[in-house]
C-alpha cells in the first residue's frame, strides 16, 4: 500500500475504560468478559462502528498464556470469543483486528523470558485469532522491540494476515526499554510489517514530533492512536475533549498517517469527532528523503558517514580469543566489545568460527551476550547459512550480514535470509573462479550481487560491497585494482566496506603500509573500514582523513583523540629501566586498583621467572594478603573488587602468553556458578565470579534464573567438582533446595557451596549444602579447600 494515495482508515478508541464503565472491576481481566459478558463487549464495538470505525480491535489485548493463567479460560477460548464479539458487531466493510499487547514479562537479556517462549505465546494467540476469522493482526502498546520481533515473526510464520505494529514512547523519543524511533522503523520495516506507528504513550500533540521523525525513516503507512491527553494522577481521568483531540490528531495526516484512532481515555465520541472533521480528500504528504542505516534496539549507525567496524571479535589467528570461545568465556568477548566501542567503533564484527566448536550455538550465545552489554549494531560474520539465520533470528535491530559472494549457491541461500529478517548484507567481489585480478571483473561481480538482491526486494542502500584486500607483498599490483574497484563500485549506489589489515602481511613495520592503504581506500570512497580501532595509528589515520575531507568540523574530534593518545616520547621509551620485581609493590598496585602498574610489574618479573612461578609465587600470595585484610575489615568489598580487577590485568597478560605457547592454559580447576531458578539478582554471584577467576579458577557461569535441570546436566557433562549457588530472595530459597536435591539425586560427585543475602549457615546445612559462603572471599577459601 502506498501511503500517498491510500484512503484514511478510522480505527476505534479505548476499550479498557469502556469496560470499566460497564462494570468490569479494577484489576479484573478484561478478556474474560468476551466469554462471560459477550453482549457488553459487542455493545462497545457497535458504538465504535456506528461512530465511524472501519477497523475495530478485538478485546484480546492481554489474552496471552501468562495473563490467562488463573482466569479459568484458555487462551484459545478468550481469543476466539473476543474475535467473535468484534465480528458480530462489524458492519460490512469493517475489518476486525486481532489485538495483541505485551506479554507482561520481560525478554532476555534484561528479563528472563526467552525469545522462543515469547514466540510460542504469540503463536498461540495468532492461531486462535486467525482461526476465529480476524482480518489482520495489530501488535500495540509495545515497548520492547525484541518482543515485537518475536510477535511479528510468529504472525508471518503462522498466519497470512497483514501485520500492523504500534509502539509506546515517552516524550524523550524512546520507549521504556530505550528503543528509538529510527531503530523501530529500520527493524520493523525490514521485517516486512504492513503499517507502523504509535499508540497510547501521550496525547496527540505530544506525539506529533515523533510521527515526524518516524516519517523520515520508513515509507510505510503510519498508524496514530494516541491517548486523550495526559491522565490526572489522582483520578486517572483523561482531560481532553473530542474536539481538542481531533484538532491535534488531524495534524498528523500530512505526515503520512493513514490509520487514525484513539487509545486510553478516548471513546466513540472521539472517533465521531474525527470522522466529522476529516478534510475532503487527503493532502499529499510531505515526502521526506528516506534515511537509512544499521541499528541495534537502541542505537543507529546512520548511512552517509564513515563508520568504523571493529574487527577484533574474530578468532582467526588469535589464540586468546580461541581459548575464550572454547571455554565459553563470554566476559573476554564482551571486554573486546567494550574496548572497541571506547576506541570509536560504530559497528562490531562478530565471527566465532573455530574448528571443533559448535558455531551456531556459540554465535547465538555471543550475540545474546553482546546485545545485553553494548548498544552497537552488529555485523554477523559467518559463511554458514544456518549460523546466519540463527543469529538473525535473535538479533534485535537491523544487522549487517557478512557475507554473500557472487556464486549462485551463496546468493540463493543467504540473500533470502537477509530479506526475511530485514538485514543489510555484505557482498564479496569473488565467485566460483576466485577473486578477479582486474578491477572490472570485481565490479562485474558486484553488479551481479546487486541484481540478485534487488530481484529479491533488497534495495541497494542495504548492500555493502567488499572489493577485497590482497596482500601487497604477494601481489603488489592488486592494491591498485582494489582501489579502482572501490571507486567504480561507489557509482552503483551501494555502500562500500573493506578489511584493510592484511594488505601489509609479510612486510616490516606493517603499520606504515596499512595506514597508507587505509587512507587511499578512504579517498577512493571506502565508507566502512573493518579495522582494530584500538590501534592509535589506525584511529588517527581515520581521524586525519575526516579532518581533510571536512567531515570533522574544526578538527575537534581529531584534537580530542590526540590528547587521549599522545604520541610516544622517544626519550622516555629508551629510559625507564625495568624496576626490580617487588611483591609489596604488586600488592600496593592491586590495592590501589592500578591494573596498568600490575601488568608492568609482571612484565618485569617475566624476565626472570616463568608464568606459573609468578602466579603461585607472587600473584596468589598478594591476593591472599588482600583477602586477609578484607577478613580483618581493614578493607571492604569495593576495595577487594578493585584489587581483583587490577590483578586481572596481570592474569590476562599471563593467560595470553600461556595460550600463545604450546603449554596448557592456567586453571586451578572448574567451578560452576548459578543464580537459582526464579531469582534474577545476580550481582552477588558475579562478584564471586570475579574473585574466583582471579584466584585462577575456571568459572562456568550459567547466569541467573537457572533451572535445576540445566545445572545438573552441566555438572555431569563437564565433570564439575565444585558448584556455587546463589539466591537473594526468601521466595527463591526453595528453588535452591530443589537444585541441591536434584544434584544429589543425579549422583553428581561435587561439593556445593551456597550464598546470598537471606542465607544462614543453619539454613545452608538444612538444605544439604556442603558449605555456606558468607562472602566472595569465603568462596575463594572454599575453592582452595576443595580444589587446592
Amino acid at each position: 500500500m502506498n501511503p500517498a494515495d491510500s484512503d484514511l482508515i478510522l480505527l476505534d478508541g479505548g476499550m479498557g475504560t469502556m469496560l470499566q464503565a460497564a462494570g468490569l472491576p479494577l484489576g479484573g481481566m478484561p478478556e474474560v468478559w468476551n466469554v462471560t459478558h459477550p453482549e457488553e463487549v459487542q455493545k462497545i464495538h457497535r458504538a465504535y462502528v456506528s461512530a465511524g470505525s472501519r477497523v475495530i480491535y478485538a478485546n484480546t489485548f492481554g489474552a496471552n498464556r501468562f495473563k490467562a493463567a488463573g482466569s479459568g479460560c484458555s487462551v484459545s477460548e478468550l481469543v476466539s470469543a473476543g474475535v467473535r464479539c468484534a465480528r458480530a458487531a462489524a458492519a460490512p466493510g469493517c475489518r476486525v483486528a486481532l489485538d495483541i499487547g505485551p506479554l507482561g514479562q520481560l525478554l532476555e537479556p534484561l528479563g528472563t523470558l526467552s525469545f522462543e517462549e515469547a514466540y510460542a505465546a504469540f503463536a498461540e494467540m495468532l492461531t486462535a485469532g486467525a482461526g476465529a476469522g480476524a482480518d489482520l493482526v495489530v501488535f500495540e502498546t509495545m515497548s520492547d522491540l525484541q518482543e515485537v520481533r518475536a510477535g511479528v515473526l510468529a504472525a508471518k510464520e503462522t498466519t497470512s494476515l497483514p501485520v500492523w505494529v504500534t509502539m509506546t514512547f515517552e516524550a524523550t523519543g524512546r520507549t521504556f526499554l530505550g528503543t528509538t524511533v529510527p531503530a523501530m522503523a529500520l527493524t520493523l520495516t525490514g521485517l516486512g510489517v504492513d503499517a507502523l506507528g504509535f499508540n497510547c504513550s501521550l496525547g496527540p500533540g505530544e506525539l506529533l514530533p515523533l510521527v515526524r521523525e518516524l516519517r523520515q525513516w520508513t515509507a510505510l503507512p503510519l498508524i496514530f492512536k494516541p491517548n486523550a491527553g495526559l491522565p490526572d494522577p489522582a483520578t486517572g481521568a483523561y482531560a481532553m475533549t473530542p474536539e481538542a483531540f481531533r484538532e491535534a490528531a488531524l495534524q498528523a495526516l500530512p505526515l503520512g498517517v493513514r490509520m487514525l484512532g484513539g487509545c486510553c481515555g478516548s471513546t466513540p465520541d472521539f472517533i465521531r469527532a474525527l470522522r466529522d472533521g476529516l478534510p475532503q480528500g487527503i493532502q499529499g504528504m510531505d515526502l521526506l528523503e528516506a534515511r537509512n542505516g544499521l541499528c541495534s534496539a537502541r542505537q543507529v549507525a546512520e548511512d552517509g558517514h564513515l563508520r568504523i567496524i571493529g574487527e577484533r571479535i574474530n578468532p582467526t589467528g588469535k589464540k586468546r580469543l580461541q581459548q575464550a570461545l572454547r571455554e565459553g568465556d563470554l566476559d573476554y568477548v564482551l571486554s573486546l566489545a567494550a574496548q572497541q566501542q571506547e576506541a570509536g567503533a560504530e559497528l562490531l564484527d562478530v565471527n566465532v568460527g573455530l574448528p571443533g566448536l559448535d558455531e551456531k550455538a556459540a554465535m547465538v550465545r555471543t550475540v545474546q551476550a553482546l546485545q545485553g552489554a553494548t548498544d552497537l549494531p552488529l555485523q554477523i560474520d559467518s559463511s554458514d547459512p544456518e549460523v546466519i539465520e540463527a543469529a538473525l533470528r535473535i538479533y534485535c535491530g537491523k544487522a549487517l550480514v557478512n557475507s554473500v559472494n557472487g556464486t549462485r549457491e551463496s546468493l540463493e541461500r543467504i540473500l533470502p535470509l537477509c530479506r526475511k529478517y530485514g538485514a543489510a548484507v555484505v557482498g564479496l567481489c569473488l565467485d566460483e573462479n576466485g577473486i578477479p585480478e582486474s578491477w572490472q571483473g570485481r565490479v562485474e561481480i558486484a553488479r551481479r550481487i546487486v541484481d540478485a538482491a534487488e530481484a529479491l526486494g533488497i534495495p541497494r542502500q542495504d548492500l555493502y560491497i567488499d572489493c577485497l584486500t590482497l596482500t601487497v607483498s604477494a601481489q603488489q599490483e592488486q592494491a591498485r585494482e582494489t582501489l579502482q574497484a572501490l571507486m567504480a563500485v561507489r557509482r552503483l549506489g551501494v555502500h562500500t566496506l573493506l578489511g584493510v589489515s592484511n594488505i601489509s602481511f609479510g612486510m616490516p613495520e606493517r603499520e606504515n603500509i596499512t595506514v597508507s592503504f587505509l587512507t587511499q581506500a578512504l579517498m577512493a570512497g571506502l565508507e566502512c573500514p573493518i579495522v582494530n580501532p584500538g590501534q592509535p595509528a589506525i584511529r588517527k589515520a581515520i581521524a586525519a582523513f575526516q579532518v581533510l575531507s571536512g567531515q570533522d568540523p574544526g578538527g575537534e574530534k581529531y584534537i580530542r583523540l590526540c590528547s587521549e593518545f599522545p604520541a610516544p616520547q622517544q626519550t622516555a621509551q629508551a629510559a625507564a629501566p625495568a624496576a626490580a620485581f617487588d611483591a609489596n609493590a604488586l600488592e600496593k598496585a592491586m590495592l590501589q586498583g592500578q591494573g596498568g602498574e600490575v601488568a608492568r610489574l609482571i612484565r618485569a618479573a617475566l624476565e626472570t621467572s616463568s608464568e606459573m612461578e609468578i602466579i603461585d609465587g607472587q600473584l596468589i600470595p598478594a591476593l591472599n594478603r588482600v583477602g586477609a585484610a578484607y577478613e580483618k575489615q581493614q578493607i571492604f568489598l569495593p576495595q577487594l573488587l578493585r584489587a581483583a580487577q587490577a590483578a586481572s590485568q596481570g592474569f590476562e597478560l599471563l593467560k595470553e602468553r600461556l595460550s600463545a605457547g604450546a603449554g596448557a592454559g592456567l586453571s586451578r580447576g572448574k567451578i560452576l556458578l548459578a543464580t537459582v531458578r526464579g531469582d534474577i539478582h545476580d550481582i552477588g554471584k558475579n562478584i564471586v565470579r570475579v574473585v574466583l577467576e582471579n584466584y585462577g579458577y575456571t568459572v562456568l557461569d550459567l547466569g541467573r534464573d537457572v533451572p535445576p535441570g540445566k545445572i545438573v546436566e552441566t555438572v555431569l557433562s563437564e565433570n564439575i567438582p565444585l558448584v556455587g549457588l546463589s539466591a537473594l530472595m526468601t521466595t527463591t530459597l526453595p528453588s535452591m533446595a530443589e537444585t541441591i536435591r536434584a544434584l544429589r539425586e543425579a549422583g553428581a560427585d561435587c561439593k556445593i557451596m551456597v550464598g546470598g543475602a537471606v542465607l544462614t549457615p543453619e539454613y545452608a546445612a538444612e538444605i544439604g549444602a556442603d558449605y555456606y559462603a558468607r562472602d566472595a572471599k569465603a568462596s575463594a577459601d572454599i575453592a582452595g579447600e576443595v580444589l587446592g
Partner: protein
Amino acid sequence: MEGRLTEISLKEALRYLGVRDAPDPQLAAAMEKCSALLRSRARPRITWRQFSLGEDLRLEGTSFFLPGQDIRRHLSCCLRVILLAATLGMETELLLRQTQSRSMADAVLLDALASAAVENVTDNLCRDLAAEFAPLHLTPRYSPGYGDFPLEAQREVCELLNVHRLLGVSLTAGGLMIPQKTVTALAGLTGDPPEKSPRPRCEACPLAGGCSYRKEDRTCESC
C-alpha cells in the same frame, strides 16, 4: 507529581556495601564518579493510586484483600490507603548490567548507589503525597516482603498500579520486578498523627535472619 531524585546518600550506599570505615580517597572519588554517572542516566518515574479500605482490608473497587497481620496493625485506624511505586527506570537497569561487563568494581558501587537513589525517590514521593493529603497523615510506607505481607502480593500491587504500562516495570514469572531498582509500597491515610518512632521493627525485616548488624546487637539505622 513527578519522580524526583534529589540526593544519593553516600552514607546509605556505603552501608549497603558493608563499608564501616570512612572511605579511602580513591573509593570516595570512585563513588563520586559513579554517583554523577547514575544521576545523568537515571530517569525516576512514579505512580500512585488511592483506595478506600473495605471490610477485611479489601481495596474498594477491586477484589484484592491486603494479606497478613502486620499490615492490619500497620493500617489500624486508616480508612484509606495509597498504593505507590517508584523506579529508576530501565536506563538504570541497562547501566548496571552494561557496567558489570566493563568493571565489576564500578558495578557494585553503582548498584549500591542506585539502591540509595530509589529509596530517595520513594521518600520524596511519600513526602509529596503527605503534602498533597494534609491535614491527613501518611503512615510510613510498607512494602511486599515486609513482615508477613508476602512478596507474592507484588503481582496484585503491580497490576492495580498498572506499572507495566505507566512505568515500564515488568514482573518475572517468579514475581520479581525489573528494573530491579523499583519499589512498591502502600501507606495508610489517617486523621490521627502516627505514633512516635514509626520505624519498621527488625522482626518485620526479610533480611533479619542473616543480618550482620543484628549479630552485633546493632541495627542498620544506628550506623
